[in-house]
Each structure stands twice: as structure tokens, then as C-alpha cells.
């Protein structure tokens, strides 16, 4: 479990990074403008023997923005990413969203 000082440090480190605009999409519940930090690092995939060029998109979002559930996708710079996994961080005010262009 994180201590209060660790949480404060995490908050201020994240605050210093660039936040960009995105739209959180929810089936049947419309959309919502949110601020996120987006990461799309190169991460090749090795299925059996072949290595395939790929990336691992993920976003950091304030947990309060995704509370309530029912969220399906995140639109970033006109590209819609499906929410594959929502990684709520214990004691953190931020949540990591694992994204994919395919549902």
C-alpha cells in the first residue's frame, strides 16, 4: 500500500506531464470530454516464430472520470481505441486504461 507521501509524489510527478484532450465513449450513455496522458510505445509481438511490429497504447486518466463503469472506448486525436482493460491502482487517484483499435 502506498504511503501518503508516495501518493503526493506520484500526483505531482504526473501533474508535471502533458495532459491531452480525449473523449470517453460509453454505449447508451453518450460521451464525455476528459484529460488523459497517452502512451503508445513500440512493442513487437511474437506469436510463434514471426516478430510483428506493434504498439501498446495506454492512457492514464483520473479515476473519478471513469467511475460508474460502462465505458467502451476512448477517442484520441480522432482515433477510437477500445478499452480492453481498466487497471485501477490501489489508493491512487489515477487509473490506467489499456487500449486497442480492435474490439
Amino acid at each position, binding site marked *: 500500500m502506498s504511503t501518503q507521501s508516495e501518493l503526493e509524489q506520484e500526483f505531482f510527478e504526473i501533474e508535471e506531464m502533458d495532459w491531452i484532450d480525449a473523449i470517453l465513449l460509453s454505449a447508451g450513455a453518450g460521451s464525455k470530454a476528459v484529460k488523459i496522458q497517452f502512451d503508445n510505445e513500440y*512493442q*513487437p509481438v511474437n*506469436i*510463434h516464430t*514471426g516478430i*510483428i*511490429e*506493434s504498439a501498446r497504447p495506454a492512457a492514464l486518466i483520473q479515476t473519478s472520470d471513469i467511475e460508474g463503469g460502462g465505458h467502451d472506448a476512448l477517442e484520441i486525436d480522432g482515433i477510437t481505441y477500445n478499452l480492453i482493460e481498466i487497471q485501477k491502482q490501489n489508493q491512487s487517484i489515477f487509473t490506467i486504461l489499456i487500449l486497442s*483499435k*480492435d474490439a
Partner: protein
Amino acid sequence: MADSKRQQLIDAIDARFKTIKTTNGYETELGNNVFAWRSSPIEAAELPCLLYRDTNETIELTIGAHIHTLTIETEIITSGGTAIKDIRKMLADIIKCIGADLTWGGIAEDTLPVAGEDIKIEQQENIITGAKLSFAAQYVTEPFNPYQ
């Protein structure tokens, strides 16, 4: 310079795999991207693709001949919205392609199935699916003469 029978066999397999196109009676266009022993990363634009490798070879000794059994591992890789049904079509196309002529133009004596279909899926920026299938081609040479 003459090619060994193994090289001739691989050339025949490569040429045959490249015929997997709908215009040749197959269900997919897998033959558009065929790679042997591909070592560099595959770009998204090259998918779907068919990779193959000649891996293990066993040799049986008989009087006046060596009987070679060469294992060929094939792998289909697709990306994006390619449905699992399409992956199975591609696997079926490979099997059909192998079965078109089990002697590969008279180079081999026979071709045998080795391992069935092994499908795996990874999801990152896109869904990437891989399916593996192996077979073995048997060919005969004179003892210690890979060219004849």
C-alpha cells in the same frame, strides 16, 4: 551450379505457396505475402502473411539411398479485424495447397502431416493472430550426395 534436392524442394514449396490466391481457386490471398525464414519484424502492411521454415531433417539409411524427412513449419499471421473464421480458411488453403501435389513436382516421394493447427491471439494496438501448421516432405538421395 546445381541446387541440392532440399533446395529444389524448398523452391517448389515457395512457388506453390505463392499460388494461394482466389484466382487460383483458393479462398484467401495468403500467397501475396510469403516469407521463408523471415527474421526482420513484419510490418502491418505485410499482413496477413505466410511464414515457413525448413527446420528438422531426419535421414533413414537404406541400401543405396538416404531417405530424408524434412519438416516444414508454416505460420499464418494476421492483424486487425480478420475473423477467426478467416484464419481457419487460410489454414485450409495451406492444407489444400500442400495436397495439390504431394511430390512437389516429382522432387519428393511423399508429404506427411506432422502437427495440426495451433492458433494464438495477442491484443495490443490491434489484434494479432498466429496459426501454426507443420508438415514433412520425404525425398530420396544417393548416399552422401544431396544433389542426386
